[in-house]
């Protein structure tokens, strides 16, 4: 009798756990689909005619067309904008890493009582609305002749992404035992050798995700690129914007140009999703 009750109890516990798992799984899928749906709809719309794109109720089945892409290709030089995006995001990421790594190294391994507050202060600059400094930055750029230059955008992107890059690199360096670096020092490594041959290889996973995040943030940045560029240095985000209000509401074309702008970074992110997950969890997952 007693054993019967026990086994029943265990069975119900097992099925209860399975039920929770199914519910959680459904929820996760629901969230994932909700997040993915706008992207899916954007891609779908990009293959519709403008009339299909406007149709109510929205149409899931239609005869696909490439005319939006053809038109964009005709009207704007996609590769000019794409190349600007590449130069600006890679440029700012490389310069950012060159500053972030030494900064995070000294913060992680030669901590003073002010280190924590410095880090917090750096991160707090990310909490300010960028528009608050738009006018001074714009005037500065104008005086320095950096409006609508790729160099100008590289500098701005480096600065806005630096706090998060330093923070991430700091978090990864913190995971590395100090003794390993001390061992390298005992072995005769110079400061550069210590960083290049021991610290960087040991934290390459974390640094890769820092690089990825910086690339994605720079690629997707729109506020500064819209305000500081016109045509010469305009990246893909500016190209998308040029298809919105001045052109009227052409949903299909806007979707097509958005798809074109998102595609490279989406594919890039897809390939490196393993690193990204690690990066976004900020070193919590080992």
């Amino acid at each position, binding site marked *: 009798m007693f054993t019967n009750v026990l086994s029943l109890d265990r069975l119900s516990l097992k099925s209860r756990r399975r039920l929770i798992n199914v519910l959680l799984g459904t929820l996760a899928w629901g969230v994932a689909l909700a997040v993915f749906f706008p992207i899916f709809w954007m891609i779908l719309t990009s293959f519709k005619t403008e009339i299909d794109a406007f149709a109510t109720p929205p149409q899931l089945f239609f005869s696909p067309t490439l005319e939006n892409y053809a038109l964009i290709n005709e009207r704007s030089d996609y590769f000019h904008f794409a190349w600007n995006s590449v130069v600006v995001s890679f440029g700012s990421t490389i310069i950012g890493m060159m500053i972030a790594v030494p900064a995070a190294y000294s913060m992680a391994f030669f901590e003073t009582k002010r280190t924590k507050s410095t880090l917090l202060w750096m991160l707090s600059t990310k909490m300010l609305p960028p528009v608050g400094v738009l006018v001074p930055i714009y005037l500065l750029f104008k005086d320095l002749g950096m409006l609508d230059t790729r160099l100008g955008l590289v500098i701005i992107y480096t600065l806005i992404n630096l706090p998060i890059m330093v923070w991430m690199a700091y978090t990864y360096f913190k995971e590395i*035992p100090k*003794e*390993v670096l*001390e*061992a*390298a*020092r*005992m*072995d*005769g*490594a110079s400061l550069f*050798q210590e960083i290049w*041959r*021991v610290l960087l*290889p*040991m934290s390459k996973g974390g640094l890769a995700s820092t690089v990825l995040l910086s690339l994605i943030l720079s690629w997707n940045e729109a506020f500064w690129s819209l305000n500081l560029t016109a045509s010469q240095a305009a990246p893909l985000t500016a190209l998308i914007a040029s298809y919105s209000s001045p052109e009227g509401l052409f949903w299909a074309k806007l979707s097509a140009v958005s798809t074109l702008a998102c595609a490279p970074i989406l594919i890039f992110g897809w390939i490196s999703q393993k690193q990204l997950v690690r990066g976004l969890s900020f070193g919590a997952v080992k």
Partner: protein
Amino acid sequence: MADLTIKNLRKAYGDIEILKGIDLEIKDHEFVVFVGPSGCGKSTLLRSIAGLEEVTGGQIFLDDKEITELAPAKRDLAMVFQSYALYPHMSVRKNMSFALELAKQDKATINEKVAEAARILELTHLLDRKPKDLSGGQRQRVAIGRSIVRHPSVFLFDEPLSNLDAALRIQTRLELARLHHDLNATMIYVTHDQVEAMTLADKVVVLNGGQIEQVGSPMELYHHPVNQFVAGFLGMPKMSFLPGRVLSGDQSGINVELESGVQLQLPISGEKVAKGSDVTLGVRPEHITVTDKDSSTFQGRLDIAEHLGSDTYCYVQTETKQTLTVRAPGTFPGAYGDTVGLSLDLSHCHLFDAQGKAIHKLSRSAA
């Protein structure tokens, strides 16, 4: 030659002084062990010698060369860390050759030195593995190998065995002793484990609160501790201490009354001790014998008996609620609550004054 001399070494973090003026001489080929409770400054002292800590004051000399301000790599020292600190992204071979590569030695020499170190430490078959594929003991040997290849003047060990399990710790301890013999090198070793200190050292340095309490051979420290701290720190199980009072004393001996009223005539010089002053009697477990309760006036109640097979450690509570540790034969039959008689080997008893300083024994050979 590798004589290390430390003069008035000081280290402070802000207002907190970790090392309060250390003077020490370490001779060539010596195996010196720094031992002390945690926070005593032993690791800081070792790291200062290594150059990993900047000192606040004082000097360090290697032979006649001052190395106080030199970068770690320029000191001709090698260090083995408690956590092994292997380079996880390099193979065992690379871990061992890293220092030689940095020193720009030629390939043939590097290969030869690595092979030699691997042979000594029986790591030859593991050379191409990564540290994560090794056991704790193997990692420890790689860490030692990494220091051997450099042929440094002095080896520094920072608690190298504390991450190993008990059996491996004993085995590695023996290997280290053998290695010291084979390499004939100067070694400085930090540990909080007094068994390691006693078994490995030519010279033990007992540290406490940033100061050296005593320096000497293990046996000298064991039998002639200069103060109550050293007496209590070395020895396993610990020395027992009983408070008492001096009844009388002269150059031929001293008469002490313990709190329980038991009077003892000890072969310890009573010349400089005032009558009536407070003292502490120290006695090691092996110098107390459990006797029949009727044959001794010094009695206690058996609290716990730990049977180790070869010996039995008895924890006996006296009437005045002090606990004495007694080593009895392995076949000791006593049980909890038994009243037992205690007999002290008076020639091996230690006496400490109110400041904890040892009062001189009449004859050192008494040990």
